[in-house]
C-alpha cells in the first residue's frame, strides 16, 4: 500500500467481493485525481451528456481514464453493476468507453462517477451525440457483407473445382449444368448484397463527375457476373462465379480492416476532451464563486483555478506569480514560472495556487484546440500511400478493362463466336489473385514478426515508409532521456561531507512527491534511526523538518535560506539549509535512456541521418546531442517549429521518421512520413503515430527497419512474380491455349509461391544481421560526462 487512499480502495474492493481484481490485473493503476462530481447535478450541464430512454431510464457514455489493462474493465463492470438502479454497463477496453444505463429514481450520475472515482478511475461523460449508433451500424454492416462474400466465395470455389476436375475426367452435361446453376446461386448474394458498397460508390463518383476507384471495380464485378450469367443460361462456355466472389471478398476484407483502423484512431483522438476540465469556477462581481460548465465561459470572465487544477481556457494571470506545468504545449516536464499579465494556456496544470485568471480565448480558439486541429490536419493530409495504392489498383483494373475490350474487338474480327469467352477469360485470369496476395501476405507476416519484438504497427502503410526513411527526427525529453529526473550534481558548503549532505536531504525528500524530491530520495535511502519531527511540505517551495533537533529546509533557494541573498548561479538548484546557512546545493538532470546510444548508432549504421528537435533549453539539448553524436539538432522548438523543420526536410526530398512520446509531438508525429511512439508516453501520441514501441525500448527501431526493408523487398519480388505470371498467362488465355484446369492449377501454385516467399520475412537471420550492425558502434559510444 503506497498510501491511505490505496488502502481504503483495497478494503472497499475486498468488501464488495471484488478481490479478484488483484489476481487479474497486470499493471498497477494510477491514483485517481479528485474530481468534482456534484457539478453534474446542474441540469444544464447534464443535459449535454445524458440521453433520456423513457420510463425513467437514462443513458450516458463515459470516457474512462486510467484503463491500463483488461482487469480494469472487469472491475468497472462489477463496481457499477453492483449499484442499485444500474440497468446495464458495457465497457470497451480498447476505446476506453463505458455505456451505462440506469434508473434515475434510484441512482444519479454524480453517484456513478463517485463510485468509479473510488475504484480509481477518472470518468468524463461524453457528449450524448456520441451515443448514436452510426458507427456500430457501419461496422456490423461491413461484417455481414464480408461474411456473405466469404461463404459465397468458398462455395463457388467448390463448384468451380468440380467443373475444372470435370474437364480432366469426364463429367456429363447435366451435372455440369447443375454445377453452373449452383455457382450462380451462391454468387448472386455476393454480387447483389456484399458488393453493393462498390456499386453505390461507383454511382456516387459518376454522379460527381469523376472516375473513382469504385468505378472499374464495379464494372469488373458486373461484367464478370453478367457474362457468367449469360453463359449459365446459354449452357455453353465457362462460368466465373468463383472468381467474382473471391474478388469481392478480397476487396471487402481490405476495406473492413481499414474501417477498423479508422474507428480505432477516432476513439483515441477523443482523448483531447479529457485534457481540459468540464467545469470552471467563475468569480462574480461580488467576489463569490460560481461553478459553470466550460462551454459557458466567455472572454473577459474571471476564473479561479485551485492548486493542482487544470487551466480551463487560455487567459492572462491576474495574481502575482505562479508555476505551471505546460508539458502539454512544450513537452518539457519542468514547470514554468508565470508572472502577472502573462498568458496561461488551457490544459496546463497549476503547480501552486490558487490563482485568478482573466479568460482571453475559449473553445476552438485556445492553443490546445490549435494542437488538436494540427493533429487533425496532419491526419487529413496523410493517406498518400493509400491514395497511391488505390490509384495503382485502379490503373491495373483500367488496363485489364482495355485489354479485355481489345481482345473482344480482335476476336470479333477473327471469330465472333469466341469473342465473348476470350474477353471474359482475360478479365478473370488477370483477376489479381497473386497480386491481391502479394502485399497482404508479406505485410501480415511482417506485422507478426514485428509484434514479437514488441513493435506494434498501427497503420500497415508505415512498413513501407519505415523501410524508405532517410532521416530520423527524435524528440529529446522522455524519448532519448528518461521521464523521471535524476540527481546530477551535489555541491556542499563549509566543508560538509557529500554523503552527509545527501543523507540529510534524502531524509527530507522522502516526505515530498515532487519529481525533484523523488530524484534526491532515489539517490540515497535517507538516514535511518534519526528523529524526524515537525515535517511540513510547502507547495511549490520545498520541505521543512527537524532532524535530530536541527531545523532543516530543502527546496528553492529563497525558501531554504529564508530571505538571505544567494548567488544567481543557484537559481536553478535545490538547496539544503539550516538556520546557520546553506549546507548543500543539488542539481537534477535528465538521464539518457540506456539504449539511446546503441539505437542511434544502429540507425546511423543503416545510413539514416539522425536529428533531435526539442522544446528544451539549448545547453541541455546540445549536451545530449554531443553525447549521442547526432547529425543535427534544434532547441527551443515549439510544435509548430518542429513541424516547419519537418516540412523543410521533406521538401528537400527526405523521408522522415519521427520518434516521440509527448502530447506536443502529436502534430509532428502526424505530419511525418512515419511516426513511432513509445508506449509509456501520453496515449494521445499513439493516436497519431503509425508504430508503437510497446516495450519502451529504442534499440528495436533499427531491427524493425531491417524487417521493413526485407518486407518491401519481398513485396517487390511477389509483385514481379505476379506480373510475370499474369503477363505470360493472360495472352495465352486470350488466345484460348490454356484449359481452365491448368489455369486454376497455375493460379494456385502462383499464390502458394507468393505466400511461401512471404514466410521468409522475420526469420532470425534478418534480425541477427541488424543486431550485429548494432553492437559494434554501440561500444564506441562515449560515456556521459558527469
Amino acid at each position: 500500500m503506497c498510501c491511505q487512499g490505496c488502502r481504503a480502495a483495497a478494503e472497499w474492493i475486498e468488501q464488495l467481493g471484488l478481490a479478484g481484481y488483484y489476481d487479474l490485473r497486470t499493471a498497477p493503476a494510477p491514483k485517481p485525481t479528485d474530481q468534482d462530481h456534484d457539478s453534474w447535478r446542474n441540469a444544464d450541464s447534464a443535459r449535454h451528456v445524458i440521453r433520456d430512454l423513457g420510463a425513467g431510464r437514462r443513458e450516458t457514455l463515459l470516457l474512462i481514464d486510467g484503463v491500463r489493462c483488461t482487469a480494469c474493465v472487469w472491475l468497472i463492470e462489477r463496481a457499477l453493476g453492483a449499484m442499485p438502479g444500474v440497468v446495464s454497463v458495457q465497457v470497451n477496453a480498447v476505446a476506453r468507453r463505458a455505456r451505462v444505463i440506469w434508473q434515475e429514481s434510484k441512482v444519479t450520475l454524480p453517484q456513478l462517477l463517485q463510485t468509479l472515482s473510488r475504484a480509481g478511475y477518472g470518468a468524463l461523460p461524453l457528449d450524448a451525440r456520441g451515443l448514436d449508433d452510426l458507427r456500430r451500424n457501419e461496422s456490423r454492416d461491413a461484417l455481414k457483407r464480408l461474411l456473405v462474400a466469404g461463404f459465397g466465395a468458398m462455395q463457388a470455389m467448390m463448384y468451380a473445382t468440380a467443373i475444372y476436375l470435370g474437364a480432366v475426367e469426364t463429367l456429363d452435361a447435366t451435372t455440369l449444368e447443375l454445377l453452373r446453376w449452383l455457382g450462380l446461386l451462391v454468387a448472386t448474394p455476393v454480387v447483389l448484397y456484399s458488393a453493393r458498397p462498390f456499386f453505390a460508390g461507383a454511382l456516387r463518383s459518376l454522379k460527381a463527375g469523376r472516375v473513382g476507384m469504385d468505378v472499374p471495380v464495379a464494372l469488373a464485378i458486373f461484367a464478370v457476373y453478367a457474362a457468367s450469367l449469360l453463359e449459365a443460361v446459354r449452357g455453353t462456355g465457362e462460368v466465373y462465379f468463383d472468381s467474382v466472389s473471391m474478388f469481392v471478398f478480397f476487396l471487402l476484407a481490405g476495406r473492413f480492416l481499414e474501417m477498423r483502423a479508422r474507428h480505432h484512431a477516432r476513439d483515441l483522438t477523443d482523448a483531447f476532451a479529457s485534457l481540459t476540465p468540464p467545469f470552471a469556477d467563475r468569480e462574480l462581481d461580488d467576489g463569490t464563486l460560481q461553478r459553470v460548465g466550460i462551454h459557458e465561459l466567455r472572454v473577459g470572465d474571471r476564473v479561479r483555478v485551485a492548486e493542482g487544477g487544470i487551466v480551463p481556457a487560455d487567459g492572462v494571470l491576474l495574481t502575482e506569480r505562479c508555476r505551471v506545468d505546460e508539458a502539454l504545449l512544450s513537452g518539457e516536464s519542468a514547470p514554468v514560472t508565470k508572472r502577472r499579465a502573462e498568458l496561461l494556456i488551457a490544459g496546463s496544470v497549476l503547480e501552486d495556487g490558487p490563482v485568478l485568471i482573466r479568460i482571453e480565448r475559449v473553445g476552438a480558439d485556445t492553443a490546445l484546440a490549435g494542437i488538436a486541429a494540427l493533429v487533425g490536419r496532419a491526419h487529413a493530409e496523410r493517406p498518400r500511400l493509400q491514395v497511391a495504392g488505390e490509384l495503382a489498383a485502379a490503373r491495373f483494373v483500367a488496363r485489364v478493362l482495355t485489354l479485355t475490350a481489345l481482345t473482344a474487338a480482335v476476336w470479333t474480327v477473327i471469330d465472333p463466336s469466341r469473342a465473348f469467352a476470350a474477353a471474359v477469360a482475360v478479365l478473370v485470369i488477370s483477376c489479381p489473385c497473386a497480386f491481391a496476395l502479394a502485399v497482404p501476405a508479406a505485410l501480415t507476416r511482417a506485422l507478426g514478426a514485428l509484434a514479437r519484438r514488441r513493435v506494434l504497427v498501427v497503420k500497415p502503410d508505415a512498413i513501407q515508409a519505415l523501410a524508405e526513411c532517410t532521416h530520423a527526427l527524435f524528440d529529446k525529453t522522455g524519448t532519448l532521456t528518461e521521464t523521471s529526473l535524476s540527481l546530477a550534481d551535489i555541491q556542499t558548503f563549509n566543508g560538509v561531507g557529500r554523503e552527509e549532505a545527501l543523507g540529510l536531504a534524502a531524509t527530507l525528500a522522502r516526505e515530498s512527491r515532487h519529481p525533484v524530491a523523488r530524484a534526491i530520495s532515489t539517490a540515497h535511502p535517507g538516514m535511518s534511526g534519526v528523529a524526524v519531527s515537525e515535517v511540513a511540505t510547502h507547495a511549490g517551495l520545498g520541505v521543512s523538518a527537524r532532524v535530530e533537533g536541527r531545523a532543516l529546509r530543502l527546496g528553492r533557494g529563497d525558501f531554504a535560506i529564508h530571505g538571505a541573498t544567494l548567488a544567481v548561479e543557484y537559481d536553478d538548484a535545490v538547496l539544503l539549509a539550516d538556520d546557520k546557512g546553506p549546507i548543500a546545493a543539488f542539481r537534477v538532470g535528465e538521464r539518457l535512456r540506456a539504449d539511446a546510444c546503441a539505437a542511434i548508432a544502429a540507425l546511423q549504421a543503416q545510413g539514416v541521418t539522425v536529428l533531435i528537435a526539442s522544446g528544451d533549453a539549448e545547453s541541455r539539448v546540445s549536451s545530449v546531442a554531443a553525447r549521442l553524436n547526432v547529425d543535427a539538432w534544434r532547441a527551443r522548438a515549439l510544435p509548430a517549429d518542429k513541424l516547419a523543420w519537418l516540412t523543410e526536410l521533406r521538401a528537400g526530398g527526405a523521408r522522415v521518421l519521427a520518434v516521440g512520446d509527448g502530447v506536443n509531438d502529436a502534430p509532428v508525429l502526424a505530419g511525418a512520413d512515419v511516426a513511432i511512439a513509445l508506449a509509456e508516453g501520453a496515449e494521445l501520441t499513439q493516436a497519431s503515430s503509425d508504430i508503437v514501441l510497446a516495450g519502451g525500448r529504442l534499440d528495436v527501431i533499427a531491427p524493425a527497419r531491417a524487417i521493413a526493408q526485407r518486407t518491401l523487398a519481398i513485396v517487390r519480388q511477389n509483385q514481379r512474380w505476379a506480373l510475370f505470371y499474369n503477363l505470360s498467362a493472360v495472352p495465352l488465355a486470350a488466345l484460348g491455349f490454356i484449359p481452365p484446369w491448368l489455369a486454376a492449377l497455375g493460379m494456385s501454385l502462383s499464390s502458394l509461391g507468393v505466400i511461401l516467399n512471404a514466410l521468409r520475412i522475420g526469420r532470425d537471420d534478418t534480425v541477427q544481421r541488424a543486431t550485429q550492425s548494432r553492437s559494434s558502434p554501440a561500444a564506441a559510444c562515449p560515456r556521459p560526462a558527469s
Partner: protein
Amino acid sequence: MNILLLLIPISLLFLAGAVWAFFWAVNHDQFDDLDTPGLLPLGDSDKREEPRP
C-alpha cells in the same frame, strides 16, 4: 453422381444456417467488442454482493 442431388441441397442448408447464425450473432452484439468479454469468465460471477451503503 445422383448422390449429389442429396448432398448439395444439404450443404446449401448448412450454408443458409451458418449465415443465419452469424447474422443473429452480429445483431446481438456478439462482435461489437472482441476484447472485453474474454475476461468475464475469469471472475466468480455468482458471488455478487450488494454494496454497502
